[in-house]
């Protein structure tokens, strides 16, 4: 089977990989690169568990043709923590009990971090909008929304 070489930056590290024709970014990152943090939930673009940031913006891994990320910057949850130091979003998800099964958590964190990167002081509605493409079956969303709002506040505190 012929494979195509592609190169991109994953969490700041240059990455090269051979991919199958037509493979999506979700499978390539998980199976070929070994970053298991993003999850398969539907392959249809309807659940958000495979949300990654491409050039800082949220995209769905399952609907991204792997060849199209050539030369681009990709971020996953693997790049969130600064060494052992958790990102405030991770910390507040933890303290707020904002996960039960944890399967949607990486996608939620990516959706939330792209929001906070562009909008350090989001309203509750903006938080809701930011995670509107991410399904959570366990929590009823409220602890997730609260955690994101608190993380925003914590990040603002850190900046000043």
């Amino acid at each position: 089977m012929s494979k195509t070489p592609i190169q991109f930056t994953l969490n700041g590290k240059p990455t090269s990989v051979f991919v199958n024709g037509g493979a999506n970014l979700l499978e390539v990152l998980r199976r070929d690169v070994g970053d298991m943090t993003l999850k398969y939930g539907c392959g249809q673009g309807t659940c958000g568990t495979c949300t990654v940031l491409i050039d800082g913006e949220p995209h769905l891994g399952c609907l991204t043709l792997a060849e199209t990320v050539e030369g681009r910057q990709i971020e996953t949850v693997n790049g969130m923590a600064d060494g052992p130091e958790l990102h405030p979003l991770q910390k507040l998800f933890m303290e707020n009990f904002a996960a039960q099964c944890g399967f949607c958590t990486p996608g939620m964190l990516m959706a939330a971090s792209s929001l906070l990167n562009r909008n350090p002081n989001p309203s509750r509605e903006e938080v809701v909008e930011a995670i509107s493409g991410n399904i959570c079956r366990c929590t009823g969303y409220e602890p997730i929304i609260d955690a994101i709002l608190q993380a925003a506040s914590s990040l603002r505190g850190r900046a000043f």
Partner: protein
Amino acid sequence: MSTIEFRKDIFADERDDNLNTIGKPEIRQDILGHVTGRSPYFDDHKFEGLLHLRCVRSIHHHAKIRSINTSAAEKMPGVVRVILPKDVPHNINTLLSLIGFGRDDEALLQDKKVAYLGEAIVAIVAETELQARNACKAVQVDYEVLPHVLDVEEAIKPSAPIVNDQYPNNTFDYHDLYDHQKLRFGDVEKAFSQADHIVEGEYQMSPIEQAPTETCGAIAAPEQNDRYVCYTSTQALFFSLGTTAKLLDMPSSKLHFVGGTVGGGFGGKVDSLHEPLAVLGAHLTGKPVKYTYDRAEEMQVGAPRGAERWRIKDGVMNDGRIIARQFTGFFDSGAYTRLSSYAIVKGTGHLPGPYTIPNVSSNVYCVYTNRTPATAMRGFGITGVDFSIECHMDKVAEAVGMNPIELRLLNAYRDGDMKAHRRIAKNCALIECVQVAAQKAAWLISPQYNAMSSLKDGGGERAQIPPTMIDDVGKIGERKSREIPTEPSSNGSMSTKPPSTIEFKGVSTAMNTVTPDELARPDLAPPTNTSEIAVPRPVPAAQPQAPQRSTTPYQQPVVTPPSQIAPASAPVVPPSAPVPNEPYKPAGDFQRGTKRPGNSPFVSGTRRR
């Protein structure tokens, strides 16, 4: 926004709150894994040369399989192995065979007859998932389409097509005796004749998808020492292991199952369909094999919470006391048994809900239809009947003109009461929950209802087992020869004049008046060119008849005091953390033996036919 309060003041003397870590809001053990994406779900294990398994699925609700031709598929790019039904060593199982409940009725891969849309027929293992999908499309299955049945009550008619060959009456066989599970407690017919009001209703639960964000799946791989490791999303590790061992006719010692970190389950990951096929694939190819549902399969092929239909008939006194409650229930099991038959037993033990009602009867049917088999889901066996009971309680409250909360408090079960399955209630807390919820919502209830307690006024007469009418209607196969009623039998001669009936069906009834013209807006008028669309349970809106009163005054049922009933007083509840490692003791011996063939030597009952 949510708020939460812990009402430590209630039942305070039954608890010791001075514990080290119990009762503390400790951070979850698994949370760090979740927020860093490191929690190892079944699919997060890397294997060199992982193969992918997909299934060819039935395109019909019900069809004989005349032939299966896989020759084109075998030649497709990337195909490593085609797995046929004959490749499954012991290709028949029922999920609860591990606890000896029900007959084996379901093949892992079906080669004789498919009984639902999406039933698996052939499995294909290929190098990529896409190749496996493409090869599945190349498999030719020659079907002879059979008539199908999708409605539970259609399915139990004598003329209905047979869905499941192991249960040719389209109903699960209970106790090798009846086509339904019975509950008989007291004499509902007699009580109905004495009731001031009869309130009836029918309720329909929808089939519901568990919809965990992680779909069901497993990866199996050959391990050292001639064993297979299987990473799985199962909710029941040894259930899946045991099922795999049975279907593959393989010693369990060859199976190494790893799981425990699962992306949501809600009951949808009990069925153990993925592990056997993944292990079989690994066994036949010598390579790691992954088999997982895609989302579309998870929603339409993966077993849902089955639909349930319940009919409830209550006999109610003017003061709100419910003196009789009769249930007829139909569980839509789909094409195979899985867990529905067991859920019915659980549901039966739950009747008549958290209320003390002196006369209760119930017939519940586990019905086979040509749809996706049903399985467990959060609240399985209970959720549907609770929906029915609690909607019905509001209708009863309306019929007698009572505050619906007070109606529930009046009928609530209390410590020491006899339940319809003939065990004494203890550790009750319904009344307190009702009072607190009403209080939080500022829904006023009168002082005497606020003064009620689960600890008071139970037992005594309420602990008695009443004389009970039993019957043997609905013996296995009887329904196939002729139409017989599904509700608990009222054959016999005790019932006299039926009281007036309030009919509640579908969607209906508002008692206050509105001028009809008031809402007759053109924008609400039905469009003229709209075709008739079948909508589930459409909506006749009948005004109810005003309830009429029965002239027969209610009398307490005559209590035959059986010597073996439990003490009338409430059992003493331990005041602090109980001693949990004492061997469990059942609440009491059976009033009489079980599994008796034929007639029942019932102590206090009278057989009606």
